[in-house]
């Protein structure tokens, strides 16, 4: 867990750059104004609306109001598939048992409502020795290793 932010003790980042220092705006206000570099994507938002503006984005927060609402995984994949390189942060009801899949979908920061147990987090993130699918994390799928 690098760069544990001092003002926010639940924020976990897997990036070396400095976190954005201003609050994320909604997708609607982001599309209306040109200055914001941080946006917050709600489950019902269409992440593709952000694609024309990726170069001015440094932080995309994807909100999980309830951990069982999986739309945020697709939002993350869509942004990474389009080449978004900035911070992709899962916020809200983010639990330790979901973080491994979130990492696979391209999230590189977590700001959960309830703090994650550090040991459980390490265990969860080192759980999968292999992966069956290609995804935003660019891990080599099993099928690729089989035919290397």
């Amino acid at each position, binding site marked *: 867990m690098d760069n544990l932010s001092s003002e926010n003790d639940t924020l976990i980042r897997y990036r070396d750059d400095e976190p954005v220092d201003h609050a994320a705006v909604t997708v609607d206000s982001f599309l209306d104004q040109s200055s914001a570099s941080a946006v917050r994507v709600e489950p019902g938002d269409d992440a593709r609306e952000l694609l024309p503006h990726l170069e001015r984005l440094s932080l995309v927060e994807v909100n999980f109001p309830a*951990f069982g609402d999986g739309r945020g995984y*697709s939002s993350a994949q869509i942004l990474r598939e389009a080449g978004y390189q900035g911070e992709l942060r899962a916020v809200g009801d983010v639990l330790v048992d979901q973080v491994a899949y979130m990492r696979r979908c391209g999230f590189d920061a977590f700001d959960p409502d309830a703090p994650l147990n550090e040991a459980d987090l390490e265990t969860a993130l080192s759980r999968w020795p292999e992966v069956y699918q290609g995804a935003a994390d660019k891990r080599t799928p099993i099928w690729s290793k089989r035919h290397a």
Partner: protein
Amino acid sequence: MYLYDQYDQAMVDARVAEFRDQAQRRLEGKLTEDQFKPLRLMNGLYLQLHAYMLRVAIPYGTLNSRQMHALADIAEKYDRGYGHFTTRQNIQYNWIKLEDAGDILADLAEVEMHAIQTSGNCIRNISSDHFAGAAADELVDPRPYAELLRQWSSFHPEFSYLPRKFKIAVIASDTDRAAMRLHDIGIQIVKNDAGELGAAFYVGGGMGRTPMIAPCIKEFVPLDRLVTYAEACLRVYNRHGRRDNKYKARIKILVHEMGAEEYTRQVDAEFDHMLSQGIEPPFAELERIRTFFEDPLFEEGASAEIDRSDPDFALWVDRNTHAHKADGYVSAVISLKPVGGIPGDATSEQMRLMADLAKDYSFDELRVMHTQNIVLPHVRVADLHALWTALEEAGLGSSNLDTIEDIIACPGLDYCSLANARSIPVAQKISERFAANGKTEALGKLKLKISGCINACGHHHAGHIGILGVDKKGVENYQLLLGGSEAEDVSLAKITGPGFDEAGIVDAVETAADVYLREREDGERFLDTYRRIGMAPFKEALYG
């Protein structure tokens, strides 16, 4: 059949470790039940009416004798000596302890089995034709495609928190033995005019409280785009499927509300985008998987002659065997529907016998049918009498495949916390009634399916005769439906009228059967007669 390599094994082993850890955190109180529930469900563990229930995946219904032995051992070691084969070709155990669940998963992993994604809002175990690789009428063996999709859908990072459960069936014959068009995605492997193999995609079927028949959204997806197209179908669903109401969250509602055309347009756009993402395994991977499904070494010139001097044996052969692609072979069905028995239940002892018979007579292979019976797919005709004799001795020789006694029934209120009425006693009484009145033979092919609630696990919408149990002011009540089919002539059954009590529904089924016997023309099944004469004569006889 497919065998794990070190990668598959590593994934299943990791899952065992993960679930042990999750169960431990639940027992320690680090996870609430609300948090634990989706995790245990994704490992097939329910909290049912009496205890925890574990559903074990049997991918596309195929297993070998070693695996069947392991299932028998688990029933004995951790449960109460029996298991229940389900309408999605799986097996479930009714009396599991949470503290044993990790050990059971470990025992399963030893024989290349698991309970991964057998419940929860994720892509479930993929089902297929129970005669795959054996049927005379199939184009190719559909199971390699099912296995390719099994690997793609296992631990899928983007599609593990879908709006609702997601079921896929794959077939490769014009005869549909897997209720393909009543799945979230039904795939039929087909050949195009150029002679190339591809996949037809049917999306948005399902039973439950709003039954729908899946429309064909793509007639031909090339085989080297199969995973990509499935991924596109799922992404559109994950993003746009309804999450405001769990009863409207299945993909059938999305396809219905959006319209099949618009859904297809969005899938195609997503597909075009995904083609550049490199998510499709190389064709060599499909070829690797295919090598596991090559034909066993069938004996050349095996005799197709049957000694029919024993009428009981002859009846069993006529009813319980299916045409095989190899001369001198058949697929033989072991009925788990003894008269008065519990549909789909098998004891450990019966499982072991079926495993041993598979080893002796069927190249070590067994299949689970969605109709809750077991298939020995490759049996020499010359061995049929010995096989039947062994089954008869063990009480597994019922000659009633596809008859009115071959009833699909969900566990119902005897086991299920969602049920409104008991299904099993109704099934027992109907099979007893028709065994006693001798009408089974005259009725011929008649599919009777019973669900104990509108979730329709007993496929009542798809029964030639369907029965739906409801709760009428605290009393079990049963509605009668007619005219459904899950096969290639797929249709949804219609309710006849007011419901019946338990005794009344058994009488009502007999009344409907009698209308058919009176009205049928040559060669007509019950379903054909119903389609020709309509509901009115049945209503008249039932409610007069």
